[in-house]
């Protein structure tokens, strides 16, 4: 009974912004079908193409990670950091850098794909490499001993075995890009409006938010269907960790280095430009330090919120089927809708920003984190939970002794990732807060007042804050694991 209530509460919590808005909008819920179909077409096209190219480049980059994983750990670590950097850097900074680096920058669909690929190819590579390690370890050794070539192995064994995982990653990427907001808004050029941008336009322009709510429900439904077309991920986690380096390629290493070098070069030129105006930053005085600390504080709050929620989620024990189905489908909630929903519900005072922003990130990131492997890991503990129950353990005992010790590390990583996103955010913070109190918001203010180069310069601080955040989380994990092993 308690578990059912908890499951239901989690579901309600995840859709709460939509519920707030549904109760507060009073409009006619009418939409223009032509406009809807046009936006859906654009959303699908840009998300599919972005996911395809991301997967393509991600796969090649993964070969580089596979090559260096066992025998060149130091290089591997550097490559992983390089792959993750675009995830830590605010989207607007990635945009400025990519656009600076490509002259003329192709606006519209090609531009959207380029920015998406640069932002996500690294993360995709890491996902593919992890899955390859899980799935191919057992077979690769045998194939190597037989004398198979790399090409033959991938053709006959690797791709067939990895097919499900690649489709899962493709679907995940499609969902992320489907509901992508800043990139199509800025780089789309205004012609190929996506559903998410249309939702934002409706909410911004009109007093009647009912069309925006309808569009958001349509987007959610489409993503549900999309996610169920993909085969679900694997439940088993292989323990065998054979070396796959013969399956890797240095071409992947070069790809990562070339893309990131180009990215850093154009980012650096914007930063150097900003350095010439560094004196202008004196206007902020100690506010920059406070903003740095406030960004970190917000990140820690978000980290705590996500960890707390994941802990409560683990209290479910076995994930109810309806909740698992929902979370597998509800991959990418609408950013605009979530933010406006929270705006409607919560008090407007400044201090509530410290609640609203972490909550927004929790609601927006949780479904995709679940789908990205956290949910499968939890479900893999089902047999242990059953045994513990049959031994007579209560729910809290199972949570404390069985589930949480095994989910803690993974949860910490996920929470850390969300916390670093918060560090660099301005889009969500701008809607939910009432003043410039974080680094991300200050960067955005600079951009809106001619000072683009300074915005690039200050985004270095942003990267520092995000990196600090993430390494503290990794440090926590390392210390905790050492305690376990000892």
């Amino acid at each position: 009974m308690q578990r059912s209530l908890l499951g239901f509460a989690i579901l309600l919590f995840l859709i709460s912004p939509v519920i707030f808005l549904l109760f507060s909008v009073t409009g006619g819920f009418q939409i223009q079908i032509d406009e809807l179909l046009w936006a859906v077409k654009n959303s699908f096209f840009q998300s599919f193409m972005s996911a395809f190219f991301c997967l393509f480049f991600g796969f090649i980059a993964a070969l580089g990670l596979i090559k260096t994983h066992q025998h060149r750990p130091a290089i591997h670590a550097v490559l992983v950091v390089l792959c993750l950097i675009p995830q830590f850097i605010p989207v607007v900074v990635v945009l400025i850098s990519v656009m600076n680096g490509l002259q003329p920058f192709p606006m519209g669909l090609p531009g959207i794909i380029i920015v998406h690929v640069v932002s996500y190819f690294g993360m995709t590579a890491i996902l593919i490499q992890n899955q390859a390690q899980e799935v191919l370890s057992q077979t690769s050794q045998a194939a190597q001993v037989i004398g198979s070539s790399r090409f033959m192995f991938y053709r006959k064994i690797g791709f067939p075995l990895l097919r499900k995982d690649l489709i899962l990653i493709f679907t995940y990427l499609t969902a992320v890009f489907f509901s992508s907001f800043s990139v199509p808004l800025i780089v789309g050029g205004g012609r190929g409006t996506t559903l998410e941008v249309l939702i934002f336009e409706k909410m911004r322009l009109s007093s009647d938010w009912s069309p925006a709510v309808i569009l958001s429900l349509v987007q959610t439904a489409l993503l549900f269907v999309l996610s169920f077309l993909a085969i679900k991920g694997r439940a088993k986690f292989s323990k065998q960790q054979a070396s796959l380096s013969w399956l890797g390629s240095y071409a992947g290493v070069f790809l990562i280095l070339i893309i990131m070098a180009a990215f850093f070069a154009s980012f650096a030129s914007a930063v150097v430009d900003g350095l010439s105006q560094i004196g202008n930053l004196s206007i902020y005085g100690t506010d920059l330090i406070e903003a740095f600390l406030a960004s970190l504080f917000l990140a820690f709050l978000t980290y705590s919120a996500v960890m707390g929620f994941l802990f409560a989620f683990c209290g479910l024990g076995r994930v109810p089927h309806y909740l698992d189905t929902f979370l597998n489908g509800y991959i990418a909630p609408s950013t605009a809708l979530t933010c406006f929903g929270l705006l409607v519900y919560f008090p407007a005072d400044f201090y509530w920003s410290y609640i609203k922003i972490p909550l927004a990130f929790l609601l927006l990131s949780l479904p995709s984190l679940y789908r990205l492997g956290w949910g499968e890991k939890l479900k893999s503990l089902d047999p242990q939970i059953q045994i513990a129950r049959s031994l007579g353990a209560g729910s809290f005992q199972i949570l404390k002794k069985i589930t949480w010790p095994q989910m803690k590390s993974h949860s910490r990583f996920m929470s850390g990732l969300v916390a670093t996103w918060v560090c660099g955010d301005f889009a969500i913070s701008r809607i939910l807060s009432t003043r410039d109190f974080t680094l991300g918001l200050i960067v955005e203010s600079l951009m809106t007042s001619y000072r683009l180069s300074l915005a690039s310069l200050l985004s270095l601080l942003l990267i520092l804050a995000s990196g600090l955040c993430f390494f503290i989380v990794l440090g926590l994990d390392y210390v905790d694991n050492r305690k376990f092993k000892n």
Partner: protein
Amino acid sequence: MKHFILFLGFIFLFLFVSHVNKNQSLLTGDQKPVIKVFAYSSFTSKWGPGPQLKTLFEQKCNCIIEFVEGSDSGILLQRLKVEGQKLGADLVVGFDQFDLQKATVEMSWRALDFSKIDADSQIKAAMKNEYFVPYDWGVLSFVARKSSGISMTLSLDDLMQTQFASKIALQDPRTSSVGLQFLMWVLKVKGEEEGFEYIKKMMKQVHSYSPSWSTAYGLFKSEQVDIVLSYVTSPLFHQIEEKNSDFVALEMIEPQPLQVEFAGIPSFCGNCEKAEEFINLMMSPEGQKILMEKNYMLPVLKNVRTGTPFDSVKVPFRLLEIEFPSLTQVESILVKWSEIRREASL
């Protein structure tokens, strides 16, 4: 491990306490009344006029000014609608002439007396309303680099030349008031039918429709485009702040549009007199100078520009009349624009 967690907890607490403490002392300092001013982010940021006006005002009023930000006037209006009364908005800064009708329909406002304002003659038409006082204005034009070799005088039709193919940065009229200004400008000078035909051709010609002025300007600054729709005062920013004289506002053959920024006091204000006093500060010569120098917009009051670099700004001889289109008018124009956009992308 326990020690590590304790250490982190201590840092957490320290950050929280120091941050809350700082803001607490600002807000509850000496039980002074708090005047809540809703404004867009470039007004309230360090670079904007907000902080200086706030300091000046607080020296005299025995009160505290608290800014509540929205990223632009559109978000501001939505924010006001959702939170305005809860938060106790006393003053709203940053509407343009397209927002006024909507603002009046959605909320009620306090009537203001403009009779004592000695406004520039070009801006007098903006005073023809009871509730919203204009505090600065700008003339829209295209900004280019002298070194790009573009002619300094252009017509709207010249923008269709091949040299400008994919070289013009415009703004989306649905999300940017500057973008909407362009749309209305074209329709005004060409008439509706010809105007929309022009817009159709522009869809193919333009580099992009950015969601905001700053994004479009960013494209221009990073040399992705050769010209951008902005203000005649934009080159002055580069001259003064960056010591760069390469930027120039093009002179258009057609009469050019004005954008006027307004401030208003909601009828549910809690500190209405103080809010009016703040407006008086904004409309004083000192306040106007601050607005001019920080916003890089033109002052409403006469003679404020004299003796300043803004004196050199060439305000075009022919300007469009300031108009206050109705909500329905704006909505139907935007619907038509959206249709054209959709067809262009098919």
